[in-house]
């Protein structure tokens, strides 16, 4: 059993997805999805435990060893990302029951949960596979199901948003597969570890270095498109805004995170940090883009009137923080990036879930419709404030922990200016969070428009994330330790 954990993590949900679709009834499908999510949650926790105890796990599917067969390769980074995905999934599914029942028509409920399971499985697959082509397959599984989940939203704009996401996602995926193909042509292998040995050999022989550079380009564009790094983020705001609330909460906390993981995998493990950062000078590209993302997207967020859209732009900015951390190329920087993966998943999940609560009661998440909600939906708005504090980076929240590491990493390399810009980004977060808080707490609600507090089935998952975002903000020792160990694995250059 425990030997087969990596396979079971993927196979069981993969089998449950068609079952969920076949039940045809949303309640039954929900139960199946709950089972799949909690199963995966349990497996990924067990995996993380094992990896922490024993180190990297190699698992050959079907008993075929690596260069020939497909290998699952679980190290600390993969296990950590898998835990992030499954944690959010395990909290999202209970949340989805009430929220999706309202936001998706009943006859499509079963399909929705099937798509949800597939999407989660795809994300998990990306996280634990050790084979680059397998990455592409799982990427398509998770993306295709994500497009259909977005398209299920009642808002008619969801359809165009999903369509655009489909086009952009497919462009990204095909760029990735082109990159993989070019690598295969030059090295003749698809295994990540194999590639990491072969690429330097090929480069040393002096042939195909140009092809590898082109492959590197395609992968850079493909992956940064998938993770919505400025200026390739254009698909994200609409997709997040018009998707059903539970889908936004799940996707915002997981799918871009897994894409960031992909970036780490390709540029640190497959190409190796020396190649990516010293020879290709990837940081020269990533750092300015990350800084522009932080500043420009925070600024755009300030001007948004739809809070889901506001949070979507803030997500693009937050992705900027992760990429900024990674672009330092140091252990501390990558630690900050990985920590922020987890921390941002918690806070953004909580914030989008709070928006789902408001959507459920008010029917809109426009700022002008939120006047006086502080009194009428106190728990929901308190959750929003909690998540917002984290986004700002107030001490005792996870956001502070991330920013602390990030600023430390910047200062370590003497980049004062970057550290200052990170602070400026926080101040901008104060403005856009305050914008909502001001309307909700100081605005007066039209008595005819009064609403009740959201049901407990929505509030409990929301608050689990809020409390988690304080818990890991107060006691960051576990997450910081895992992130540091993960960064140690990835980073080769010791300053």
């Amino acid at each position, binding site marked *: 059993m425990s030997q087969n954990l990596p396979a079971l993590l993927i196979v069981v949900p993969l089998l449950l997805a068609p079952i969920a679709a076949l039940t045809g009834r949303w309640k039954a499908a929900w139960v199946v999805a709950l089972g799949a999510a909690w199963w995966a949650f349990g497996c990924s926790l067990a995996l993380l435990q094992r990896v922490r105890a024993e180190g990297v796990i190699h698992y050959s599917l079907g008993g075929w060893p690596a260069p020939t067969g497909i290998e699952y390769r679980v190290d600390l980074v993969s296990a950590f990302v898998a835990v992030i995905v499954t944690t959010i999934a395990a909290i999202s599914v209970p949340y989805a029951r009430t929220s999706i029942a309202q936001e998706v028509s009943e006859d499509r409920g079963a399909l929705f949960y099937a798509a949800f399971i597939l999407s989660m499985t795809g994300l998990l697959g990306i996280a634990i596979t050790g084979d680059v082509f397998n990455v592409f397959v799982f990427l398509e599984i998770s993306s295709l199901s994500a497009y259909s989940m977005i398209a299920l939203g009642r808002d008619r704009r969801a359809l165009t948003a999903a*369509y*655009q996401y489909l*086009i*952009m996602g497919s*462009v*990204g995926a095909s*760029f990735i597969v082109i990159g993989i193909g070019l690598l295969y042509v030059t090295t003749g292998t698809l295994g990540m570890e194999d590639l990491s040995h072969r690429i330097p050999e090929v480069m040393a022989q002096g042939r195909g270095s*140009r092809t590898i*550079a*082109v492959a*590197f*380009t*395609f992968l*850079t*564009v493909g992956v*940064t*498109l998938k993770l919505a790094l400025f*200026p*390739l983020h*254009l*698909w994200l*705001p*609409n997709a997040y805004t018009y998707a059903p609330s539970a889908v936004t909460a799940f996707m915002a906390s997981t799918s871009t995170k897994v894409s960031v993981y992909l970036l780490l995998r390709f540029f640190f493990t497959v190409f190796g940090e020396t190649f990516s950062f010293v020879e*290709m*000078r990837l940081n*020269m*590209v990533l750092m300015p883009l990350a800084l522009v993302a932080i500043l*420009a*997207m925070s*600024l*755009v967020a300030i*001007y*948004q*009137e739809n809070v889901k859209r506001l949070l979507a*732009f803030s997500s693009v900015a937050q992705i900027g923080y992760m990429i900024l951390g990674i672009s330092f190329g140091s252990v501390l920087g990558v630690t900050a990036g990985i920590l922020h993966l987890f921390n941002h998943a918690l806070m953004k999940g909580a914030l989008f879930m709070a928006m789902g609560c408001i959507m459920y009661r008010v029917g809109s998440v426009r700022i002008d419709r939120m006047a006086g909600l502080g009194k009428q939906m106190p728990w929901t708005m308190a959750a929003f404030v909690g998540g917002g504090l984290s986004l700002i980076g*107030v*001490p*005792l929240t996870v956001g502070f*922990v991330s920013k*602390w*590491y990030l*600023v*430390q990493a910047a*200062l*370590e390399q003497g980049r004062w200016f970057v*550290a200052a810009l990170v*602070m400026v980004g926080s*101040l901008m977060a104060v403005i856009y969070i305050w914008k909502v808080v001001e309307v909700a707490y100081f605005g007066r609600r039209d008595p005819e428009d009064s609403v009740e507090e959201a049901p407990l089935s929505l509030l409990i998952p929301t608050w689990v994330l809020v409390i988690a975002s304080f818990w890991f903000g*107060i*006691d*960051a*020792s576990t997450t*910081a330790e895992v992130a*540091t160990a993960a960064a140690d694995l990835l980073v080769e250059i010791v300053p």
Partner: protein
Amino acid sequence: MWIDAPPFLLLFIGGLLAGVTRGVVRKAILLVVPVLGGLNLIGMQEGVHLTWDVAGYTLTVFEVDRMSLLFGYLFHLATFIGNMFALHLGEEDRASMQHSAAMLYAGSALGAVFAGDLIVLFVFWEMLALTSVFLIWARGTERSYRAGFRYLIIHVLSGVLLLSATLMRAHETGSIDIDQIGLNGSFYAWIFLLSFGIKAAFPLLHNWLTDAYPEGTATGTVFLSAFTTKVAVYSLARTFAGEDLLIYIGAAMTAFPIFYAVIENDLRRVLGYSMINQIGFMVCGIGIGSAMSINGAVAHAFNDVIFKGLLFMSMGAVLHQTGRINGSDLGGLYKSMPFTTGACIVGASSISAFPLFSGFVSKSMVMSAAIYEGHEVVWLVLLFAAAGVFHHAGIKIPFFAFYGHDSGIRTTEAPKNMLIAMGIAMVLNVVIGTFPQQTLYLILPFDAPYSPYDATHVLTQTQLLFFGALAFVGLQKTGIYPPELRSTNIDVEWSYRKLGPWVVNGVGSAALAIDGYVRSSVMALVHGVLAAVNRAHGQVGPLARSWPAGSMVFWVALSLAAYLLFYLYR
């Protein structure tokens, strides 16, 4: 002693309980918690009591030495008096909010003075701002909301500066301890000084104080006057003791508010200015840096909390009973509020440093230290300031509120709890002033014997006071003394309230000049600068617009081309 809990914890718990309880239970909590907290400190061992490992760092949450212990006692005392003074609040005064905020605020102040490193100090530093602003907002007027906002922005800024400086210092020296920093030529030291200076109301940074404190509630301002600036004084004493620059800053602080205080009409704002003046003495004492002067600075901080609290309480009682606070609207209240009048006079005597009142035993310590260390000019400035403070706080406040022309207001004495609170502060003022050796001097941080009651001190001070009084009477009789007018004083905050928007928006924009408060003007500034940015980022700007799929793909192609060029021709 018997709990050994971090002092802030008790008050935080009390604050949260005060927010959810009502009636007698809440009253009991308000009075018992500060007493318990104070008893908890008695006999507390010096040293580190509580650390906390977080993110690979060990934070010292709770550390005790003589200086922090003195502030610890002081803050518990102030909390008790302040809570007693606010005990009558009903739900129409937003009592839950006020009581809860006040206790949390006091807890944050305690957390700050018992903080063992700069990170912990920063956390409580920001909490001071976040909790205290509710005491201003609780007034419920548009004016107080705006003033509270300006206050919050400035204090959060001070916290951000503190954190930045801490990080810079940690990066350069690897230390986050709260120990002597001094202006050692490094950039971060200036940032520290700026951060502390904002909270301590240094000249040109002082306007948040005179802007926000008079807008607080009648009871809330009593708390406000006790904690924020004293935490700043404490921090300065810890990190910048003996820094010459502080002597001159402190001397300037004692002198310049006098002119504003003399012409100001809002009596609580007059107290705000006199508060800056008193802090000036403390800053000066810290700057001199001898054991005696630092003793004097912290002793003066101790006394200031009590007598300034007493003055704010007496003005709070007047505001509570009459609803007015402008000197031009008041007068002749001594008949209807005799006890409050007495309290105000005791407070005024203390702040003016009459012998036998508490101000005397600490202020003279700072002034003697200035002479011993050879700062004669500074000593003269302080002397002038001491005369000035007698003038505006010692005579003007009681005169215009309780005597002067009869305003025709007939009211009754303040509620009992207010009187009890003022009574306690009165007794403390007199006891400390009369028996300093047996009380306050016992808990001073350094061992520097000092006796305030020798002929020189008493004579100098008495002469000063009598000539000050003579000047007031002379000016009043000859009609030279500026009458109490309904007017607004223009101070440095004018530059950010008025000048900034004026320059940015041109002379014609009268609308902004009317609505010239910081929040709106800063926002206007931001809007102005960002007008161009808005075109790019706003709802329909190119960065925020929903793009057609075709142009998205175009961007992808463009990126690909750019990356290819970069990688192939790197």
